[in-house]
Every structure is written in C-alpha cells, then in structure tokens.
C-alpha cells in the first residue's frame, strides 16, 4: 500500500502527484518529461519534495510539514533503474549482496545470495561482472538486488526500455513470473501504453507532473475522463458536438449534422460536449448492410498509412463540407482492407458503435 501526495517545483515544471496504490501492480504512464520518474525518485527518497506526504503500508516516510524525511535505505523500497545502474566493479554476487541490509550475518548473506541466484537462474554467472552479461541478465540482477532485502514496495523505472524490442515480450512474461511471489505494491513507470496494460492491473496517467486519471486498465483505455487523457491513451477521434434530447427521450450528440447515439451518457448536460472513439473501434460497413447500423456516416478516404498488419485510414465526411482535412482516423486490419478493396479516394460507410462512443468531461 502506497499513499503519496507530492509537491515540488523545478524550473519550468511543477510536480504535484497524488496516488494511492494497493498491493497490486500499478503503472505510471505518461510521456517523457511528465514527472513519472521524478515521482519514483521521490518515493525512494532520492529527491526531496518541497511539501506533501509519502506513506508506505501506513508508515510515514516523508512528511513535509512534520519534517519527516527518512533516508533512502530506511524506507524499505526496492528501486530498479531504467538502465539498471548495476555496480560495474562488483560481480553479480557482489551486486546482489549489496541489496541486503547493513549488518546481515555473513552466513545468511551467502545463503540469500545463492537463493536469489537460483531464483534468477544466474547460478553460473555469480562471478561475472555486469559488462559480461546480456541485457536481460542485467535486468534480472537489478531486480534481484532490489528484491533480496525484502522491500515493502517495488519501483520499476522503464524496465524494458534498455532492451531490444525482440526480447521485450519474453522478458515481460519472465518479469511477471519473478514478481509473482512479491506481495506488496509494485509501481511501474512506462511511456508505452501497451506495456502498462500488459504488466499492470491499474494505470495512472500522468502528464505535466499531475495524475490525470487513475483506474483499472480497461477503464483508462476505454473511458478516458478528459480530452487530455484521451489524447494520451490513443483515443484519437475527438468529436465536438451538441448534446440534446432526441424524440424518444434518449440523449443524442449532434456532430456535423449527424445525430449520434451514445450508450452511456453519464452526467450529460445539454450544450456543447466532447466525445471520443478509438481508431480501432470505428467500424467499416459493407454497403449491403447499411440499414442494420446506427450512427452511420459516409466518408471518403483521404489518406492511408499501411503498417503491415493494419492500415490507418483518414476519413473525410461526405457532407458537402470538405475542408481538406480528415474528420476521423480509423484502424483496420490489412485483411479487411484487402477484402473491401479500399483505396485513397474511395467513398465508404462507417459506423460509430454507441457502446464505444465515450463522453469526455471538460478539463478542469
């Protein structure tokens, strides 16, 4: 359990993170420079916030107003750095044993190191130096060094960014396996949304030093709270329209003259609203099935980007008001792209499924 509320001003940047994370894997997701790594450093005690509190399992490790500021090694925090920060002059064993608390008896230390070497499958590398290891092995050593002292919480700063994309996938699974026995809070920092989704059950979106939204990974992905969250999570289509009640009493959003149905209007009020839909949620409609669809639109492909497995199509609505740019970005699998023989300039039908259309609240 980790509770924190931080405040620190840096030149041109204001960090004011607030988080409560239970005993689970949570991801701190945001672009570079958003303050996510800074937040980790503050939790570990390596930078000092100007104000705020940090509590680990109810134990206050930092309190700006009560002048509590525990030294990093007294916080029982395991921190795995982005490029692992192994001690280059120490062997794998030496790196691991450094993670043990000061004054651990020699026999116990040897046993614990051996145990950890076994767990990490690095027995035959005990006497190797970090520069003799592969990226994945280094990551394991860094993880083992952070875990060997039984920290209460574990912080991982971009654990995969130093690795080749080819090995990332396998190492994610491996890391999750190794972390399986860890019972406390794990906070993972990443700028890769997919990685956040794969590793964590809860995702916090952070930007400009502030947590914009925190929730289950599904929620963050499919129900962004505000426009800024939507922009960060890849809900590229943001439609600005007018909310009004339809004839049947349900809410409609009028966007570019089309009355769009929305399944979950939430706390909607009449007037100008914004809603969003992810590029992969927009459906292409075969022309013979047009009658069965709601939120039907007709548009022309103005641009496309083939990405191998899928295509990004940029659609301009055919409503007589062609402004020369696109109105919707949609993502279709290459197979469907070929089946429907799509090309730039072609007119197509598409629909915005009401359960995928999501209403945004205004930024505060």
């Amino acid at each position, binding site marked *: 359990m980790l509770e924190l509320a931080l405040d620190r001003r840096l030149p041109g940047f204001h960090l004011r993170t607030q988080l409560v994370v239970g005993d689970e894997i949570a991801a701190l997701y945001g672009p570079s420079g958003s303050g996510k790594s800074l937040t980790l450093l503050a939790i570990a005690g390596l930078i000092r916030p100007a104000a705020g509190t940090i509590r680990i399992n109810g134990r206050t490790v930092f309190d700006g107003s009560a002048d509590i500021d525990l*030294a990093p090694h007294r916080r029982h925090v395991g921190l795995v750095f982005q*490029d692992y*920060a192994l*001690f280059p*002059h120490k062997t794998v064993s030496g790196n691991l044993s450094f993670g043990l608390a000061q004054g651990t008896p020699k026999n116990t230390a040897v046993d614990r190191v051996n145990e950890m070497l076994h767990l990490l499958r690095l027995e035959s590398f005990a006497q190797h130096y970090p520069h003799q290891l592969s990226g994945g092995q280094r990551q394991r050593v860094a993880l083992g060094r952070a875990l060997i002292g039984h920290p209460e919480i574990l912080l991982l700063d971009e654990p995969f960014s130093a690795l080749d994309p080819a090995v990332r996938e396998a190492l994610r699974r491996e890391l999750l396996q190794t972390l399986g026995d860890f019972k406390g809070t794990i906070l993972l920092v990443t700028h890769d949304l997919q990685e956040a989704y794969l590793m964590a059950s809860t995702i916090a979106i952070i930007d400009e030093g502030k947590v914009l939204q925190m929730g289950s990974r599904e929620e963050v992905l499919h129900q962004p709270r505000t426009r800024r969250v939507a922009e960060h999570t890849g809900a590229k289509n943001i439609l600005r329209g007018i909310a009004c009640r339809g004839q049947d009493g349900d809410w409609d959003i009028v966007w570019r003259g089309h009355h769009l149905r929305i399944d979950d209007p939430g706390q909607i009020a009449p007037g100008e609203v914004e809603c969003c839909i992810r590029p992969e949620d927009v459906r292409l409609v075969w022309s013979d099935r047009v009658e069965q669809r709601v939120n039907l639109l007709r548009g022309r492909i103005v641009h496309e980007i083939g990405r191998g497995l899928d295509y990004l199509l940029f659609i301009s609505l055919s409503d007589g008001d062609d402004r020369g740019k696109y109105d919707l970005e949609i993502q279709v699998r290459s197979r469907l792209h070929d089946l429907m023989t799509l090309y730039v300039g072609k007119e197509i039908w598409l629909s915005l499924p009401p359960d995928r259309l999501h209403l945004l609240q205004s930024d505060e």
Partner: protein
Amino acid sequence: MTQIPLSPLLLSLKVAGLATVVTLLLGTPIAWLLARGRFPGRAFLESIVVIPLILPPTVIGYYLLLLLGRQGLVGRLLEQGLNIGLIFTWKAAVLASTIAALPLFIKATQGAFEGIDRRIEDAGRTFKPALIVLCTITLPLAWRGILAGSILAFARAMGEFGITLMIAGSIPGRTQTLALAIYDAVQANQSQEANAMSILATAAVLLILVLVGRMTKVKY
C-alpha cells in the same frame, strides 16, 4: 669519476611522496565537493583551486613567504604558538610541492567523480547509508582517476622549483631537492653532476610509473 650526490634525490622523493599524500587527503574531499556538491561559493572554490596553475610560481612563493615568514600572520602564529618554524625547512618544500600539485590532482579527481553515473550511487543509497556508498561504490569507481591524479601530483612535486626556492631555499643537504641541485650544478658548470642527477631523476620517475601501472590492472 665524480661521486653522484644521492641526498638531493632522496630528499626529492621524500618531499614529493609526502606532498602526494597530503594532496590526496586534502584534494579528494575538495574534488568530491566540486563534482557533487551544490552550495553557494562552489564557483568561487573552483577558481581558487586553479590559481596555482595560472600564477607564476615565484609570485605564489612570495605570497607564501609574506604569509608564513617570521613577520607573517600565519608564520608568527606557528612560531610563537606551536614553536614550529616552517620557512627554509624541508616542511616548507612539502608545502610548496603540495600547493603546486593540488590543482592537477583536483582536476583529475573531480573528472573521475563526475564520470560516475549518479544513478549508480543513487541505487546504492537505496540499500546502504550514504557513507558506506561513498566508501564502497563512489571511491572504488573513482580510484583510477584518483590514482592518475596522484601520479600527476607526484610528478609535479618532483619537478617543483619556483615555490620551493622561494620558501624553502636551496640549502644543500637540508632543502636542496633534485631540481634545485641540478640547477645549482649547471650554474657551477658541473655538467657531469648535472647529467648524473638528471638521468637519476628520469629513471626514478619512470620506475615509479611502471610500478604503479603494474599494481593497477583492472578486472572489470
């Protein structure tokens, strides 16, 4: 065959060795402060440190003479308070060499500290108290730079001439170091002695360099 005077060489080795030790003890904390510290006056300290590199040695020697001489502020305190006479003794030669060697040592060592990835020290601090991190992570990682700085310091101390002449003089058998003795030999037209001592000085310094290089093979 002329007898080669050994005492200037021995004196030089003693003075330079001691000066190197003092430089190491004094310079390492300063270098660390300059590399890692954030405090008001850091820039000032940084420029103070290099002054001995820029000023003519005789000028530094003259200032020291004013400061440490019988009438000088520090000199009077030392002589009356602690009964230590510094000027024109081998101790003054050590001081002269230390002052000449410090800037070189500090610059090399500061570079070594700055070259350490800060996150490695940070990682250490999450496990152990800062002092232990300094002793088991920072210093071992910087030691090659510290050693290089020490060699520079020793070499500079062996060659020290100007400041030494000003505050220690050139008293044969007492404060006449090798560099001074060679100068005197040349002045007195004793070219054989000058040759012998020059070769001796070269050999001694080379030998030390080779020995140090041997002791410091790195395995990582």
